[in-house]
């Protein structure tokens, strides 16, 4: 495992996690035997073909679903207690903004649910809109924003309660390549600035390598971890990294890990 000092509890500790969905006919094993530790402040990507259970794993961490076997701890607590304590912030592939709320009101939503006062809320929203570069759009409605801007609002909303863990399920999956690369640099900076651990689900090898300290390669039927590829790319990710040999080397390593599994349909998309 990585560099975190032993005193800090792990952001995520999964041991022998399995998830079985019971359907009418038979049981579907979405995940089996998943062991994974994510250190505080670490950026970990989950990558793999469709049906490998990467989104399921993220939903288990978020306590939106419960594992059928194994133990899962978030900062040393059960996922449920971590959720109630607001230890994590979450963002999905669709921005999932409430269309009847302005940008500011969307970002403030988690704070409002937790009964934070108006002045505190307003101050935090100002900070966050600055952080994601949307300070001029606070009074706009989601349908007046581009997809990339909506996704930035969603990231700001996920950060609102200052979580120590960010869960992101393909947040840039629906964006064009330009916007996507731009937001990757931004997210990398935000993660470094806030010191939050990130669990990032993606379909894209370059995206996983560019952002992560470690890339968790998963394979399907049943969903499991095939290999964990450390990137050793250090902090401060910027556009120059995309041209560097070390980066290409890690992209190749992840690609080989993906194709090397005993999966007929493994591919990089």
């Amino acid at each position, binding site marked *: 495992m990585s560099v975190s000092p032993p005193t800090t509890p792990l952001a995520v500790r999964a041991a022998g996690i399995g998830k079985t969905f019971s359907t009418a006919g038979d049981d579907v094993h979405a995940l089996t035997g998943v062991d994974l530790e994510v250190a505080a402040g670490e950026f970990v990507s989950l990558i793999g073909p469709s049906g490998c259970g990467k989104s399921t794993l993220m939903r288990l961490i978020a306590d*939106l679903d419960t594992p059928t076997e194994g133990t899962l701890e978030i900062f040393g607590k059960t996922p449920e207690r971590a*959720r109630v304590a607001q230890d994590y912030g979450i963002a999905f592939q669709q921005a*999932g903004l*409430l269309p*009847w709320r302005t940008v500011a009101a969307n970002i403030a*939503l988690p704070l409002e*649910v937790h009964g934070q006062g108006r002045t505190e809320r307003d101050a935090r929203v100002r900070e966050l809109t600055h952080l994601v570069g949307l300070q001029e759009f606070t009074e706009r409605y989601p*349908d007046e*924003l581009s997809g990339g801007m909506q996704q930035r609002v969603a990231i700001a909303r996920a950060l609102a309660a200052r979580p120590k863990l960010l869960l992101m399920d393909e947040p840039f999956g*629906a964006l064009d390549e330009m916007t996507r690369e731009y937001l990757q640099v931004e997210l990398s900076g935000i993660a470094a600035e806030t010191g939050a651990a990130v669990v990032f689900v993606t379909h894209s090898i370059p995206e996983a390598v560019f952002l992560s300290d470690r890339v968790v390669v998963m394979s399907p039927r049943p969903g499991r971890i095939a290999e964990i590829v450390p990137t050793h790319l250090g902090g401060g990710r910027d556009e120059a990294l995309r041209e560097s040999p070390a980066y290409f080397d890690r992209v190749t390593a992840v690609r080989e890990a993906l194709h090397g599994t005993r999966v007929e349909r493994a591919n990089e998309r």
Partner: protein
Amino acid sequence: MTAARWLAVGWGVIGILVVIGSWELYKATGPAEGVVVGAVDGETGSGVMILPRTHDRAMPHVWDMIVRLFAPTSGGDTPPLWMSVVAAAGVTLGIAAVGWMIGVIVGAALGLIMQRSRLAEWGLLPWIVLSQIVPLIAFAPVVNAIGNQIDRDVMPWPQWLSVAVIASYLAFFPVAVGMLRGLAAPDPIHVDLMRSYSAGYWSTLWRLRLPAAVPHLLPALRLAAANAVLGAVVAEVSIGMRGGIGRMLIQLAGQASSDPAAPWAPTFGSIALGLIAAGTVAVIGVGLKNYRRGEAAA
């Protein structure tokens, strides 16, 4: 936008003109005594009439209906008919509004209960659907009788309150169904999101489910308004309440052989009532326009 608005108004006017034109065209060309099939000689009223009569007592000219609006209500120096219609329509509108409000409250409560519990939905929804099959004319006298009982034994219960209750019986149905559908409408992502905030039932209801229900609720409220007017008119007639437009309709229709244009005045009055009721709800919709925004696809 304005061009589209004018076009809409234009089509509305054309629609009315087509109705008037068809009326006058049939009146001018159809047989005065209509067409009756299978009539037996010497038996009045036998056979089946397949085309209506066109003589002035059965089908007054449109302009006669309009002229009648400005003539005294019942001869002499009584006020012009249109004023009586407006007064009666006002009474009915007030009762319908009370009925609408009762219907909205009851319907919203039923929708909330059914959304909260699947068991309640299974238990209630069939009865709610069934309730609308009971003919209003059979149901109204029962409500009236219960109202009289309460008036005698418990507390003052004016007759108009019975009419309002009957109107609410028609109004609650679309609200209950619209509320149930609307509360179940939020995007699963939004529901997950509220769960990730560990938001409770009421917080989720207030911040997510109710706002997301608005696009489903507005048509339901409009339908409920039209139903409340209809219910109030029918209830007035069937329990014999005086002062409203339903009663006026029946009264003037009874005198139609001597004053054929008169019943058309309260008919127009009830049409106007329905439009006013639906229009009022449309105004509510304007106030809630932010809840009808769609999120642009990413």
